[in-house]
């Protein structure tokens, strides 16, 4: 029986016991802090073998060779070049200790640098570095591999691909999660599991993240989605700080007491990480003796993942939306960008689609005369950093799809695989190798199948080939091929029947690009939305559509048209021709009076509507001064009170202030005509010399302007001399100074001292993150803790 079969045999019968910590055991036995562990182990083989043997004797079925950091990058940093020899020799030492009943895992740790798209090291270079380590461990007799303590899903992928391209040995991958439940790079446990098990990991889990209690939570999260056994290696608790001294607090018996809970949570391999000892492992093993392992609940899973998150297709209550905007077809601006090799617009499109509740993003970057391979990798890099939505790789080129799948740090969706013979097998092989899901396009030649029977045959053939490759119906989504009803009256019915057949007979998920259905017809929005809801009733899983169409509209005329009822097309066109393709717009409550609407525009911060509302009011003969004094000013005062009571947050306050300002700008010319301008109190504002932070001062300026002060804003990094010169010129009631740093705060005093020296009569108001009331008092200035407080102080000091 080879090692892989032996492990699989063990997993059916028991919970496999892994070993415990190596690092903390080596330090206990005298390894100096600055030593390179791998090198020190080879210099002290007796100590290393003693630790391995202790774990074996404690009951470990698998021990890890001490090769965790033995990769080219880490060893180069310590001036060690013989990477292969170190890996081989450390595996041989572990084999000597393991004897015949214990297996040895080649241990692969992180490289200590981040890999693209999250770092600078190229993905392929990372794969090569891991291959160097792995091939030497194979020479040293490693029975299996463990890729552990990974914080970056892309690095885990690179190591796993390296193993899979070199051998068929059993491979465990365990990630390390932070207290918030994600890796340091933001990957959730479920996303990591979906990515790694689909890529070929034989066992997935977590290590070193935390103590047993929190790791149990991770195991429980993972089990429902796992198609492979689960492995965990918790620490002996988390290091605790007492009197600024840190230590691992969990004793062996306490650690062992968690073993039964891990077994119940469905963990299939259990060991320990930092702080654990052979005694911890022994205690866990004793508790697990005779415990039956819980097998994975499922053999397949229909789920996609990104570097951060995942999308589970099963049991969805609503149709999922695939965002289609990242596609140059019909988008000249995107075409131009892509031709120049730029991908910035893609980030913006992704953000907009996410905002509109897209569940995944389709990525197509194919434009003539551009390097599609490069653009696809750039787009994936960008989207992996900016978005947590899974991606569908949309290309007609096998090469582009291959590059993309290899690089994509998640489980992707291939869009698409058709019955075209030349492409079918190569693409299915890629889907299998990289664990991707794929969209089945029911086209076999150039022509679109005319009948539903033809579609079904093509789908069945593709599924048959997929099964031969080791894929299942759960790995695919059928594209129901939406044609337009204006040229093919049965188009909608064909789609609806295909959806029903896929769901009921094939048990397959379905996707449809809905907007094609209405091409050439009026009120496409009504047809599309109606069609979406009809498709949903038939069991559609995903739609390539505008998320706004999710609203539950089924238009009777559109429904008849889509069901190809007699005369329905003519009736629909007659009814809707000339009707504009309107989007839903916010309509203010018609019951409000014009004055109330203006007040609401300020209170709600509706910057775009206030000017037109005021113009309407003026045309209706409303008095401009009254609009200002009786509506705008009370409105902004109400907003101030709401902010003070924390019922409003800062963006609401500022949006209201900006609305007020726009309203005021409309009214002022009319008020001036009616009444001579009153003398306003002047306030000079400045951020003091050396300080470049001015957003707080800008907020104060806006609010004071709202309240009728004349503001002279000198800007930021302004010297005392310039401020005083401006004060002499404008004779303000108040000078307001802001500073964010302790080093620049002292310049406020310089301004005030200079003002005294120049015998200026103005008063001073100060504020900013580091400024306190006591500091303000010390320089004889008033202290404004925020913009509203600045308004109150300004009113008091200037008495307007």
């Amino acid at each position, binding site marked *: 029986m080879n090692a892989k079969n032996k492990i699989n045999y063990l997993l059916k019968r028991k919970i496999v016991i892994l070993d415990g910590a190596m690092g903390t055991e080596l330090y206990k036995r005298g390894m100096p802090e600055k030593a390179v562990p791998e090198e020190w182990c080879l210099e002290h083989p007796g100590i290393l073998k003693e630790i391995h043997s202790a774990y074996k004797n404690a009951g470990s079925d698998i021990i890890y060779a001490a090769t965790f950091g033995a990769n080219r990058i880490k060893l180069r940093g310590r001036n060690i070049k013989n990477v292969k020899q170190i890996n081989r020799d450390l595996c041989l030492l572990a084999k000597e200790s393991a004897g015949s009943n214990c297996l040895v895992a080649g241990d692969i740790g992180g490289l200590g640098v981040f890999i693209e798209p999250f770092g600078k090291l190229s993905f392929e270079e990372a794969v090569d570095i891991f291959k160097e380590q792995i091939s030497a461990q194979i020479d040293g007799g490693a029975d299996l591999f463990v890729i552990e303590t990974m914080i970056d899903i892309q690095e885990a992928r690179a190591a796993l691909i390296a193993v899979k391209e070199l051998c068929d040995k059993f491979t465990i991958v365990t990630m390390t999660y932070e207290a918030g439940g994600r890796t340091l790079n933001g990957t959730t446990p479920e996303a990591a599991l979906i990515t790694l098990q689909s890529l070929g990991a034989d066992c997935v889990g977590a290590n070193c993240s935390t103590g047993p209690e929190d790791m149990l939570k991770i195991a429980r999260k993972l089990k429902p989605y796992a198609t492979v056994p689960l492995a965990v290696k918790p620490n002996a608790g988390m290091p605790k700080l007492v009197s*600024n001294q840190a230590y691992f607090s969990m004793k062996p018996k306490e650690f062992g007491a968690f073993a039964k809970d891990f077994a119940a949570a469905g963990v299939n391999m259990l060991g320990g990480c930092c702080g654990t000892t052979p005694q911890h492992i022994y205690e866990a093993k004793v508790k697990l003796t005779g415990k039956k392992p819980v097998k994975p609940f499922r053999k397949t899973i229909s789920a996609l993942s990104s570097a951060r998150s995942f999308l589970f297709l099963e049991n969805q209550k609503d149709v999922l939306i695939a965002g289609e905007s990242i596609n140059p077809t019909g988008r000249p601006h995107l075409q131009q960008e892509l031709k120049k090799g730029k991908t910035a617009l893609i980030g*913006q499109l992704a953000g907009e689609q996410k905002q509109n509740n897209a569940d995944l993003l389709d990525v197509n970057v194919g434009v003539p005369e551009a390097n599609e391979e490069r653009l696809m990798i750039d787009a994936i890099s960008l989207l992996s950093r900016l978005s947590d939505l899974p991606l569908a790789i949309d290309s007609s080129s096998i090469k582009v799809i291959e590059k993309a799948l290899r690089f994509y740090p998640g489980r992707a969706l291939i869009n698409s695989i058709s019955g075209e013979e030349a492409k079918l097998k190569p693409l299915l092989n890629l889907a299998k190798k990289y664990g991707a899901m794929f969209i089945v396009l029911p086209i076999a030649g150039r022509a679109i199948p005319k009948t539903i029977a033809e579609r079904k045959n093509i789908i069945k053939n593709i599924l048959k080939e997929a099964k031969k490759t080791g894929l299942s119906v759960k790995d695919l989504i059928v594209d129901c091929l939406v044609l337009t009803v204006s040229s093919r009256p049965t188009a909608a019915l064909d789609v609806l029947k295909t959806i029903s057949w896929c769901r009921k007979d094939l048990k397959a998920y379905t996707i449809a690009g809905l907007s094609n259905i209405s091409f050439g017809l009026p009120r496409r929005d009504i047809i599309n939305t109606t069609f979406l809801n009809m498709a949903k009733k038939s069991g559609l899983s995903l739609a390539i559509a505008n998320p706004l169409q999710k609203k539950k509209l089924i238009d009777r005329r559109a429904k008849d048209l889509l069901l190809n009822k007699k005369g329905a097309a003519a009736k629909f066109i007659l009814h809707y021709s000339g009707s504009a393709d309107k989007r839903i717009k916010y309509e203010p409550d018609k019951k409000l009076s014009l004055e109330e609407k203006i007040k609401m525009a300020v209170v709600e911060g509706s910057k775009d509507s206030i000017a037109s509302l005021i113009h309407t009011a003026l045309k209706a003969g409303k008095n401009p001064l009254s609009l200002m004094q009786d509506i705008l000013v009370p409105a902004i005062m109400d907003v101030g009170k709401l902010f003070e009571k924390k019922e409003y*947050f800062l963006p609401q306050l500022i949006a209201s202030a900006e609305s007020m300002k726009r309203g005021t700008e409309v009214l002022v010319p009319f008020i001036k005509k009616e009444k001579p301008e009153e003398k306003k109190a002047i306030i000079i504002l400045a951020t003091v010399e050396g300080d470049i932070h001015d957003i707080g001062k*800008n*907020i104060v300026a806006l609010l004071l302007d709202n309240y009728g002060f004349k503001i002279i804003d000198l800007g930021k990094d302004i010297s005392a001399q310039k401020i005083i010169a401006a004060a002499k010129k404008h004779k303000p009631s108040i000078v307001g100074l802001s500073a964010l740093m302790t080093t620049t705060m002292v310049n406020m005093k310089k301004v005030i001292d200079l003002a005294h020296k120049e015998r200026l009569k103005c008063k001073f108001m100060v504020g900013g993150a580091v400024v306190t009331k006591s500091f303000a008092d010390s320089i004889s200035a008033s202290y404004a803790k925020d913009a509203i407080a600045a308004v109150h102080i300004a009113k008091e000091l200037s008495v307007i």
Partner: protein
Amino acid sequence: MQEPEIFNQINLDLPLESIYKRLGYREGKTAISGQRQKETEKIINEALGFIELKGCALIEPVEKTGEAVRIGNFPITSKLLFSLLRNSDEILLCAATAGEKIIKEISGCSKSDLTRAIILDAVASEMADACFEWITSYYNRKLVRTGRRLTDRRISCGFSDFAIENQKKIYDLLKLNKIGIDITEQFILVPEKSATAVLGVIKL
């Protein structure tokens, strides 16, 4: 002296709760309309396109005499720092920045659309802050395997008696110009939303 470790691209989850908190949102008190929330989150998402989180860190041995701490050739006198390092022979110096693009975007709209500016500003501040948590977690992961970890507390120049002038020493040790950070004569890091911090390294 070792070379600092540079993180050219730090990926973080959006700290939405802290961003709202920074903007004055208080759970159970503040009421926001759906439209306002949508607009706010649109701007928050846009901010992500402008923020380029970078970091830099270095572990250095420290010598302690009296109340002075010496890092390489740099002596620093600070009771606060001394207390932080009372069980440490090493110090982690670190820095983080949200990059220049976001600052340009904020200043570009701070007159024409202040609502947008303050939201962008809050996102940049919170993301830069969260970088320190990330750097701390990253180093704790590395250190725990060598029987060490970082102190829970971190301090920055300008806190208490840890004088702002020390910013220049940290700037030089971390070679912050390599991640696009400059320092002014007033010891302000440019671009805005750049900061440094120090933590002690303690043995387990």
